[in-house]
């Protein structure tokens, strides 16, 4: 039994390292923060972490299948722009129309109210998922390398976002914004459950920030079942040895499509949250690019091999949190914020170096190039 624990520990050393790194950094941060260890700080951190954590999860799945998805930031941005039209929360609904080639096309009215918001959320997530599905189909049926396929589709998705929001704007329902970006207590008070959050049994958990709860729910309800499904197993197998996976009769094409589709879904979740958090849609190209690159960095810090086959989206969440905590430090220690990329880069280098130690054990140097 002890054997098993030791084996599991060795195999998950990457994730363990990321968790420890995060724990140490976050404790230091809270000690240094004047209002450390308070719900307010936690809520603020949660809001700042969520979108990147989602993108890190999104990036993990294609990387496990040894592909890189350069469109996750673009999908996030596009979904955010859609959300700024669909989640306005106006009771009478939102009239939608399309202006293209000088034509004015009425698209009817998107329903308002609570049911309208729920529908809007579903539509936004569906758009993200569809974008990922398209990526997967292009990679599999177009036989195009993932990195270039998603570079192209990413540009297309950004184009759609710019078409939707040439300038930042739009509106998100205020209650939705309040409920999703604060503590569980605020959430309950806004949607009027558990006696508006005053129920006595609810008090011990009321301080937990909603984004963390969402993160855990998505991880448990989407990632864990996926990892334990045959399709999820096939994704790992494809990333580990595609030839062997084929010879074992695994559904390789479906696994790759599933990997990119799931990436689209996660990226959609991130975009949806970002729109809710900022109460607007913004086709911000530099931001999309930065999120994509940070998602790759998070995946690596979280112990997933860019060669595919090993790692986990859970590790990537911690990778994203490590990156974010580094930026928190800049706020409290009053370091010039311009130095931030420098430090993030150094941390990334250190994390990758640990992962590269195995190279020293290779006995046939020709294998390094295969």
């Amino acid at each position, binding site marked *: 039994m002890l054997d098993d624990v030791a084996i599991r520990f060795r195999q998950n050393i990457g994730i363990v390292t990321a968790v420890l790194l995060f724990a140490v950094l976050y404790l230091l941060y809270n000690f240094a923060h004047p209002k450390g260890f308070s719900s307010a700080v936690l809520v603020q951190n949660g809001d700042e972490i969520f979108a990147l954590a989602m993108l890190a999860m999104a990036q993990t799945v294609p990387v496990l299948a040894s592909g890189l998805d350069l469109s996750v930031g673009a999908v996030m941005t596009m979904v955010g722009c859609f959300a700024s039209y669909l989640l306005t929360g106006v009771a009478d609904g939102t009239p939608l129309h399309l202006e293209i080639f000088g034509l004015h096309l009425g698209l009817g009215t998107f329903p308002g109210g609570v049911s309208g918001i729920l529908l809007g959320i579903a539509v936004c997530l569906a758009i993200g998922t569809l974008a990922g599905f398209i990526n997967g189909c292009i990679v599999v049926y177009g036989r195009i390398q993932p990195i270039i396929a998603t570079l192209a589709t990413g540009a297309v998705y950004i184009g759609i976002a710019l078409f939707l929001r040439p300038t930042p704007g739009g509106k998100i329902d205020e209650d939705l914004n309040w409920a999703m970006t604060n503590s569980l207590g605020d959430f309950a008070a806004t949607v009027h459950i558990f006696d508006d959050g005053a129920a006595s049994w609810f008090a011990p958990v009321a301080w937990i920030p909603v984004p963390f709860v969402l993160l855990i729910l998505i991880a448990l309800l989407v990632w864990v079942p996926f990892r334990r499904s045959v399709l999820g197993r096939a994704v790992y197998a494809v990333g580990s040895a595609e030839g062997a996976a084929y010879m*074992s009769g695994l559904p390789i094409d479906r696994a790759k499509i599933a990997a990119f589709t799931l990436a689209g879904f996660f990226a959609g979740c991130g975009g949806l949250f970002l729109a809710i958090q900022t109460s607007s849609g913004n086709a911000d190209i530099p931001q999309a690019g930065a999120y994509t690159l940070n998602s790759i960095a998070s995946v690596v810090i979280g112990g997933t091999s860019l060669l595919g086959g090993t790692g986990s989206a859970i590790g990537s969440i911690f990778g994203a949190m490590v990156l974010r905590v580094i930026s928190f430090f800049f706020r409290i220690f009053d370091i010039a914020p311009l130095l931030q990329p420098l430090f993030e880069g150094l941390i990334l280098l250190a994390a990758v170096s640990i992962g590269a130690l195995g190279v020293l054990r290779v006995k046939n140097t020709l294998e390094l190039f295969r």
Partner: protein
Amino acid sequence: MPDAIPSQSAFLTLSGISKRYAGVRALEGVDFACERGKIHAVLGENGAGKSTLIKIIAGVVQPDTGTMRLDGRDVSFATPSAANAAGVVCIFQELSLMPDLSVADNISIASPPRRFGLIDARAQRRRAEQLLAEIGCEDVNPLMRVRDLPLSRRQVVEIAKALGKKPQLLILDEATSALTSADVEKVYAMLARLKAEGVAILYISHRMHEVEALADRASVFRNGRHIETFDKGKRSTADIVQLMIGRDIAAQYPPKPARETPKPVLDIENLSWDRHLHQISLRVGAGEIVGLGGLDGQGQKSLLLALFGVLRGVSGQITVEGREVRPASPAAAKSVGIALVPEDRKTEGLMLPMSIADNLVIASLDAISKGPLVDRARENEAIKRAIARLQIKIGAPGDAVSTLSGGNQQKVVLAKWLMTDPKLILLNDPTRGIDVGTKQELYRLMRELADQGAAILFYSTDYDELIGCCNRVAIMYDGRIVRELEGDDLTETNIIASALNIDGATPESSGAAHA
């Protein structure tokens, strides 16, 4: 004609199967059958068509012509999984395991036990433990990643994975090559059990004593044809070797000049590496072509790589022209005058999209440069000389090297190294996939280089070629040199006998007997 086997008792029947790869014949008009409850050995030299045969049966490749019947029904397998579904399971030489997944994951990869639609990790683990216990290898922890297991244990996992598919026809392709002798015994016991249960077993092995111990029947293949099938005990080992060799039209080889003991260029003492090379001692003199023979994968390639500085952790002594060297990289090997024509010319020998000219000078840039800049005039001069010397047929030197035929590509690889003026030339199966005409040019060139004083170490899978080209051939088996053949001893029968290690001689005794 192969002996007919009564078709009513056959479980698998192949009729008229042919297969060509890019115009090269791999199988031609093969009729073959095997029965339930029998272990059927498939024998043949390297390239006799055994691998293609089992790939067709296992659904990895499709035959060009011919039919296959399984259990009385016509079948054709489009994929390995279709073959698996019909009960045909193959344990391949190249492992089909996914290194990053655990042993339990790998064993149940195709159809894992499920609960509520999700993989049931606990049931999967029990299943792995059960299957591993069946072959007596309980020591493998199913949680371990395959990557972290030694090769012999991976092979065990591969066998357990195949067993888990409940095979009706089990194909073992050199499946015991990496096993320890204790594990081999366990695998034998498992095969006997499967045989008793009525499973048909196809067994491919180069170990003659293994075939003798296990097989109820054997079929010999040669040059893509099924030569003969016979029952156990009907043929002596010598007969079988003769059947495997057959008669071939010999290629033209340049004459070997007689010479006295040459000045040694390469002197290897007790070279060992990892688990693949053991205590190798070998000398190659100036003007000598020394062959490396034996079955595929007995350490010949590793030996060449070790000399070229590719391998880490090599022990022993390497002396080149009286100076002890220990090349740490191909660059270091190059600087002491060693050249290697590598195994795969497309990935290791050439930069395919680059031009012929660039490829030719890439190893000798320092010789044609002034300071940091390449001297264009000297470069063009060198390129012209190389192309003329090797008679490489090209359009223009600026064309991509990928536009050349395989033979001419190989000439470019060789020419590239000749420009460095090597003292020791290592050749890793340089004539593979090359037409006969170009082969003869290469043989002539090798002899020419030797005559100019180079020492050549030449690995080839083609025994005929070794006999025709080499002054001396060292036969390797299991990472050791088991015998050195020279002069009149250098015959195909002797090569095959030593390659199969039929007398089971320990390297010490046979080496001593021949020293």
